[in-house]
C-alpha cells in the first residue's frame, strides 16, 4: 500500500499471540492465520502460515487446502492425523508428535484430533499467499452448501437423515469442535 514502500515493509508478525486468533472456541482451541492480507510482504513470497492449538480430544474437522500445499510442523503435544487422497484412501493415518513434519498436498483431505492431555499445537506453512481451506463439516462446509435432495440422492440417505445432518452442520459454526458425545455414547 501507499504507507509501505519496499524499504519500510513490515517483515515480522507474531503468530502465537492468542489475541490475534481468527477462529476461537474456548473448549476446543484456536487458529490464527498469517497471509498477505495481514502481512503484505507475503504476496511477494506467495506463502502464508497458520498457527493452531487444539485442546485435548478436540477435532479440526476434515477439510482440504483448496489452493496450496500445507507443511505441518508440530510445536507441542500429539494428535491422531489422517490424510486422504483422491483415491479415497488414507495415505497417512498415524499419530503426529512434537518436532515432526507432515506434508499435506493440495486438495488432499486432512483431519486432526488432539490425543494428548497437553493438547496439540502446530504451525502450518502454505504455498499460497492467500491459502483457503474448504471444510467438509461445519457451517461453511461443502455438504451444507449442497441442496438436501442432492445429498439424499448422492448418499442414498432419507430426507430425515439429511435434514439431521445439515442441521447438525448448522450448529458447528467453526472448524474446530469438541465432540459433544463420544462415538461410543452415540452408539449406545
Amino acid at each position, binding site marked *: 500500500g501507499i504507507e509501505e514502500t519496499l524499504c519500510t515493509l513490515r517483515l515480522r508478525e507474531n503468530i502465537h499471540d492468542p489475541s490475534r486468533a481468527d477462529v476461537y472456541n474456548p473448549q476446543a482451541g484456536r487458529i490464527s492465520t498469517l497471509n498477505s492480507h495481514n502481512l503484505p510482504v507475503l504476496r511477494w513470497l506467495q506463502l502464508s502460515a497458520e498457527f493452531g492449538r487444539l485442546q485435548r480430544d478436540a*477435532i479440526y*474437522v*476434515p477439510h*482440504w*487446502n*483448496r*489452493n496450496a*500445499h500445507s507443511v505441518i510442523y508440530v510445536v507441542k503435544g500429539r494428535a*491422531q492425523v*489422517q490424510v*486422504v*487422497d*483422491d*483415491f*479415497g*484412501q*488414507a495415505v497417512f*493415518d498415524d499419530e503426529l508428535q512434537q518436532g515432526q513434519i507432515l506434508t499435506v*498436498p*493440495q*486438495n488432499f*483431505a486432512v*483431519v486432526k484430533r488432539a490425543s494428548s492431555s497437553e493438547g496439540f499445537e502446530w504451525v502450518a506453512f502454505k*504455498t499460497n499467499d492467500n491459502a*483457503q*481451506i*474448504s471444510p*467438509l*463439516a461445519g457451517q*461453511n462446509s*461443502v*455438504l*451444507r*452448501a*449442497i*441442496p*438436501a*435432495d*442432492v*445429498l439424499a*440422492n*448422492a*448418499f*442414498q*440417505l432419507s430426507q430425515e*437423515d439429511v*435434514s*439431521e*445432518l*445439515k442441521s*447438525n452442520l*448448522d*450448529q*458447528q459454526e467453526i472448524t474446530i*469442535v469438541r*465432540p459433544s*458425545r463420544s*462415538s461410543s455414547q*452415540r*452408539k449406545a
Partner: protein
Amino acid sequence: QQFNRCQLDRLDALEPNNRIKAEAGVIESWDPNDRQFQCVGVAVVRRIIEPNGLLLPQYDSAPQLIYIQSGYGILGAVLPGCPNAYQESQQHQQGQQPDQNQKIRNFRLGDIIALPAGVAYWLYNDGDSEVVALSLLDTNNQANQLDKNPRHFYLAGNPEDEFQLQGRSPRGQRRQQQQGQGRRERGQQQQGQGNNLFSGFRTEDLADAFNVDEETIRNLQGFQEDRKNIVKVKGRLQVVRPPRSREERERLERQEREQEREDEREQQRESRRGGREEREREERQQEREEEREQERERRESRRGGRGRDN
C-alpha cells in the same frame, strides 16, 4: 523426458480410449498420457448425463472449462466462504428447518462453464434429452500444485477413476491391497470399499466431527455403492433455484421442437432415400418457417421496445 515432451513429429486426431458406464450416464475420457496431451498439459473427459441424472459432487486438482454440447440442466458449485444464499421458503415443510444451499446456476447448450481448481461441483440434467458436457482440465495451470495427473476428488458414492491413468493401478485393486492391510491395522470391519474422500477416514472420527450416528457416516463413505459416477435421482430433484427467464424457456422449447422436426425429417429421408424433390420441398418449408420466425421476432422486438423484460 520433460524437456522434449513437445518433440512431436506427427499429430493425430484422438478418440476417447476409456469408457465408464454409470447408472444414469456414460463417461468417456481421452488418455492424458498421450504425448499430445502431455505436451499441451491438459486432460479431457466427456460426460453424457441421461435425463434426471446427477453427476456426483466432486472437485478437481486443476481449473477446468466445461462446454455444454447438448441439453440443459443445473450446476451447483460450492465456492469456499460464499453464503448459502438460496433458501427454501419458510412455509415449506412445517416443523423442519428450511433447506439452504449456495447459488445454483442453469446451463444449456452452448454454455462454457469455468470452474476453479478445488471447488466442489455437481451437475444435474433436468431436461428430457441427454446432456453432453465436455470438460478440459488445465493440468499445467499454476493453480494446480500437484503433479500433472488430472485428479478427481469425489465427495460421494463409489466412483471409478475417469482417467484410469496408466501406471496408476485402477482405484479398486491398489486400494484393496492397501486397504486390506490398513484396515486390519485399524481393526475396522467394513464391507466393500468406497472411493470417496469420506471412505478414507475412520468412521467414528467422522461421526464425532459430524455429530451423527455411524450408520449415516457409512452412507457417506459409500462402501455399499455400485452406481458409479452418475446416479439416477429418485423422482425429480427438488432444489431451490430461480426459474429460467422467459426467453431462455422459449429458446429451449424451440430447440426441442426443431430437434423433433429434424428427427422426423431424418426418418422421412431414410424411408424415401433419393427423393430429391422431397428434400427441396422440405428446405423450402424450412426457409418459410425461418422467415415466419424472424417476422415474429421482429414484431416482438418492436412491441418489446415498449414493455419487454430487462
